[in-house]
């Protein structure tokens, strides 16, 4: 059964007089791939930080995986994962050492760690690379490994902050296959991207402009609503008039 794993109601963050995130209200269902778009400076990172329990909101309500962002940030952290574009595996550790390290941090038992690392290495086809330093892996593999390590403790929700920047188009799609598979298994994916074709892979998309959610719907409905043939055009129509856009 589908239920909301993220609920935000008028979630707001102010820095002095500056309203970085302005009364955000939305829900994300379990197993949904939810695209969180916006121009640079629109307030995406601020919103994500609040949802991850890293930043206390100024006002409004939110629960993540059923936990309150004000009072239960530690429980939230145990149930989510966060991967940024430059999410760094330890480059001077080997593939296996990285898996052990992160698995250990997330509290996996030795038995779980062994099963999980075998499964993960087989899935990624990294059998011959386990003893290689991460620094020597091609970038695309490093990103796929990053994602797999980020979900090693099977979090309910994974936050991906521009996970595919600079990656070639084949690897970018392999990466999305991992995301699709994880969502298919019931994991909720909350993802930001500057690639508008990737926005189409999401079930629903929100677009932030100047700290507010300016639109939230399925890609298909958004295109209809804005009379656009691509998400690129939808985004452009919404973000073009932004006061806070990075220009």
């Amino acid at each position, binding site marked *: 059964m589908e239920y909301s794993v993220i609920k935000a109601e008028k979630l707001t963050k102010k820095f002095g007089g500056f309203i970085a995130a302005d009364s955000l209200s939305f829900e994300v269902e379990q197993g949904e791939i939810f695209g969180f778009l*916006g*121009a*640079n*400076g629109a307030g995406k990172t601020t919103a994500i930080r609040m949802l991850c329990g890293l930043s206390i909101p100024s006002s409004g309500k939110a629960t993540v995986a059923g936990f309150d962002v004000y009072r239960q940030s530690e429980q939230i952290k145990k149930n989510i994962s966060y991967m940024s*574009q430059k999410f760094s595996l330890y480059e001077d550790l080997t593939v296996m050492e990285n898996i052990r390290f992160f698995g250990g941090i997330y509290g996996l038992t030795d038995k779980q760690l062994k099963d999980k690392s075998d499964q993960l290495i087989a899935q990624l086809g990294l059998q011959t690379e386990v003893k290689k330093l991460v620094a020597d892996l*091609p*970038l*695309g593999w490093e990103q796929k490994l990053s994602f797999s390590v980020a979900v090693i403790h099977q979090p309910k929700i994974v936050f991906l902050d*521009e996970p595919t*920047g*600079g*990656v*070639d*188009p*084949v*690897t970018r*799609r392999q990466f*999305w*296959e991992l995301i*699709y*598979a994880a*969502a*298919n298994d019931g994991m909720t994916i909350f993802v930001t991207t*500057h*690639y*508008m*074709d990737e926005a*189409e*892979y999401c079930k629903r998309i929100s677009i932030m402009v100047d700290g507010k959610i300016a639109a939230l719907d399925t*890609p*298909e409905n958004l295109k209809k609503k804005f009379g656009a043939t*691509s*998400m*690129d055009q939808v*985004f*452009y129509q919404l*973000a*073009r008039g*932004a006061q806070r*856009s*990075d*220009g």
Partner: protein
Amino acid sequence: MTNAGENLKEGSIQNPGTTVISSIVLLGLTKIYGKEKKVAVDSITLSVNKGELFGLIGPDGAGKTSLFRMLTTLLLPDAGTAAVGGFDIVRDYKQIRNTIGYMPGKFSLYQDLTVEENLRFFATIFNTTIEKNYEQIEEIYVQIEPFKNRRAGKLSGGMKQKLALCCALIHKPSVLFLDEPTTGVDPVSRKEFWDMLKRLKAQEITIMVSTPYMDEATLCDKVALIQNGKILSVNTPQGIVNSYPEKLYAIKSSNMYLLLQSLKKYESTIESYAFGEYAHATFRNDISDKNDLEYFLQKQGVEDIEMKPAAVTIEDSFIKLLKN
């Protein structure tokens, strides 16, 4: 290594019967790093015409920055030669530095100088003044002029980018090298940046620009697709798209994940991959028997199937070339 300047004088490499003048010429240019002999740039040969907007399209680690650093005389090649504006990149490095503008991928202006101080600094280095060449940068500079007393480090990403472009243009270069100017930039700012490039092109500046965004390829006169230090293809964007070997289809369903999985299992599928709201796929036998595919997909549980011929994009071509 021979001096490319001797045989690659501006205009000496031409297509027979035309008067096209080459502004940048590379002959087997190669860069190898470290003890492990990692080949970053692998014997690249190409030429860029004067006044052309030339795109170097490829992912991180493809060799774009190494190539730029050799052409801007900041890195010595290990083999091959190249000339920029008729000057050899090794022997004539001083002349090249005077005639080119270079905007590196990483923001490299002085963060603790103001906008105006940075610009004045770069103008002075090239023995000129802001006032003398103001016309060259005016259109871009007016957008950041209201912040001319702000330190560069305090600017937003988009404004930093505009300042960096002004600093690269202030000495009126004839060739401009822009290394990933739009990486990490949102689609609106990216569009603005490309509009600026188009206007610069009108001033007959040769521009070599690199980007990981395939959709930007169509904005160039000519593009080179680069991966693992090698050029996969050099052509006009239309030429690259036209040389796509198969008929491409766009397919959609209410369950895209299942559709993608199923397409991979279909026996005459050559390629299949997600492409925006559709999956793109090519087939071995031109699937004149479209019903067979639909029947197969339905058997896999794929519902609401929509299928149509698709227009090939640069990204499709790149995927094809990467997989070969």
